[in-house]
């Protein structure tokens, strides 16, 4: 695990050999100017290694989707960004439109919550799956063969027939498989999955996750998995970042997030969610409601909802420190996980 606090210096020569799929360093985002400026993200550092699965977890307004989208250069209208975003060696914030288009076409793909929003309803599935390949110069016949193979591998029955069908002829789960097939058709370095299974039934979710994992492993694709579901993140991710009010609160190895949360917010989330396994335990709500960065208090953003907060939490944004298997922005992690 990287230490979040120190921006990593990288030697240029061997960067290509060991470069990350995604590196977001101290990214801050704001819209508007002067007194009317609204901050959205502050000092967000997120890294996804090659072939790694990394979770980005948080509630509404945490900035998890904004962070993921920034990797494709998809910033809110009029947003000003500072920091650095690099995907497969491309400096995204400095890139021109053509470079970004090329990046989205070949190096980085995205899967959204609603597959119907990602597909043009009046175009056939076959067109959707071959357009990325055709744009890279693959001959039509080869592209069609590749699309057929992809549909077969994501478990669509009668793939040849499916190529000729329209999105409305598929269920949500089947359509999300098609979108995943399309997203991985170019064998990208990075897959951004923004709540890809939230709209699906729980049994379908398990199948789609299994598919994502298999495809990702086969291609060595790094995946940034954005979700509000802590259980899901801990189940499939190598590492997890927990975001709150536009900042990263904790970075942890996937499984140890459950056994040893180091931030009061992470622990609060775990205690607030009812569980289906083990002894039936009382749930403990976190007081107040989730905040966006613009409405969060100074110092630690979580301090107005935190049971451990003291006066010192208001003085400055807590620096990241290592505690157990976590890197955490809290002054008293030892009181969260002794």
């Amino acid at each position, binding site marked *: 695990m990287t230490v979040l606090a120190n921006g990593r210096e990288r030697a240029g020569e061997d960067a290509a050999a060991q470069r990350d799929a995604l590196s977001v360093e101290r990214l801050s985002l704001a819209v508007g100017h002067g007194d009317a400026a609204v901050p959205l993200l502050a000092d967000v550092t997120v890294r996804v290694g090659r072939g790694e699965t990394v979770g980005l977890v948080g509630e509404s307004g945490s900035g998890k989707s904004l962070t993921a989208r920034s990797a494709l250069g998809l910033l809110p209208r009029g947003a000003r960004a500072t920091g650095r975003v690099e995907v497969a060696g491309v400096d995204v914030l400095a890139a021109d439109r053509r470079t970004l288009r090329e990046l989205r076409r070949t190096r980085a793909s995205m899967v959204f919550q609603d597959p119907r929003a990602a597909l043009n309803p009046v175009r056939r599935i076959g067109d959707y799956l071959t357009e990325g390949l055709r744009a890279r110069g693959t001959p039509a016949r080869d592209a069609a063969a590749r699309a057929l193979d992809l549909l077969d591998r994501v478990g669509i029955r009668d793939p040849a027939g499916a190529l000729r069908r329209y999105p409305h002829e598929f269920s949500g789960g089947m359509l999300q498989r098609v979108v995943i097939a399309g997203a991985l058709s170019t064998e990208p370095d990075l897959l951004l999955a923004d709540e890809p299974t939230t709209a699906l039934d729980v049994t379908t979710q398990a199948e789609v996750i299994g598919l994502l994992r298999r495809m990702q492993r086969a291609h060595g694709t790094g995946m940034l998995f954005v979700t509000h579901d802590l259980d899901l993140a801990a189940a499939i991710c190598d590492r997890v970042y927990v975001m709150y009010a536009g900042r990263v609160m904790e970075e942890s190895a996937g499984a140890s997030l459950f056994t040893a949360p180091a931030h009061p917010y992470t622990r609060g989330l775990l205690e607030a969610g009812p569980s289906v*396994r083990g002894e039936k335990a009382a749930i403990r709500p976190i007081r107040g409601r989730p905040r966006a960065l613009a409405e969060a208090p100074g110092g630690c953003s979580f301090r107005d909802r935190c049971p451990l907060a003291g006066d010192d939490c208001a003085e400055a944004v807590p620096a990241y420190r290592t505690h157990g298997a976590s890197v955490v922005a809290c002054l008293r992690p030892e009181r969260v996980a002794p």
Partner: protein
Amino acid sequence: MTGNTPADTGGSAVADGAARPVLRVTSLVKRFGDVTAVDGVSFDLMPGASLGIVGESGSGKTTTARVLAGLERPTSGTVELDGRVVAGPEAGRPAARGGTRGRVPGGGARRDRLWRASRLQMIFQDPYGSLDPRQTVARSVAEPMRLHAPGPAAGRRARVRELLDQVGLSERAGGSLPRDLSGGQRQRAAIARALAVRPRVLLLDEAVAALDVSIQAQILTLLDGLRRDTGISYVFVSHDLAVVRHVTETAIVMRHGRVVERGGTERILREPRHPYTRLLLDSIPSPDWDLDRVARDRRALDRL
């Protein structure tokens, strides 16, 4: 279903002398054209009890809820509410077993609707749907009282304050329009409005599904407290087994319109008997999540 025995098949006679169910659903069927959305659903809900209806999309759980709320007419079967048949061939008459309790108010669909609404209220996933966007929350909460119990405005105002307090909304929130409140506050407002007529049954359809985890916990805690304090009964419709475990004592699991498993919620989660229930449980992510087992469950179900 009384929930006294885990294997209770529902629809059995109420124990002698014991409290009678506040809600009894018998062999409920709802067809839309050729599609049978609900296929022979039966259960009993006792006063102060909480029953979960679990299922995925297409299971018929929401259609069942809509029939209970009177938003859809059943194709066959009956719904008895508070001792009176409110849906089915003999709707409007006292239930056969209801004895003298259910008096037939003379005619009128509107009166029937009012009668039902005074005993059963529904909470939806999106509270926007149950609140008038142009009215303050306090006025929305007062509205059902004006309909059901016309009386002096001062009395209503006091009751509105009491209700807002009960669901944890400030007076300032009461004076706000729905759009100025957060999702959690809006769901609180919808609950206050539903409680205004002192119903015996609250029907919650994915009522906490759209809320953030920390807010969901606040609403679940509120629901716990309300049931403890008022003795109201819940029918809790949800796809989320963890939430159902927290809110209910008994549950039915639905698939393709049918009840495939019923019993105590804890028993269902610990020793699921139907392969579909097992699939649902194994599909829930956990640190030792076994996706191969999910695939095996699915195949076992297909063989059925």
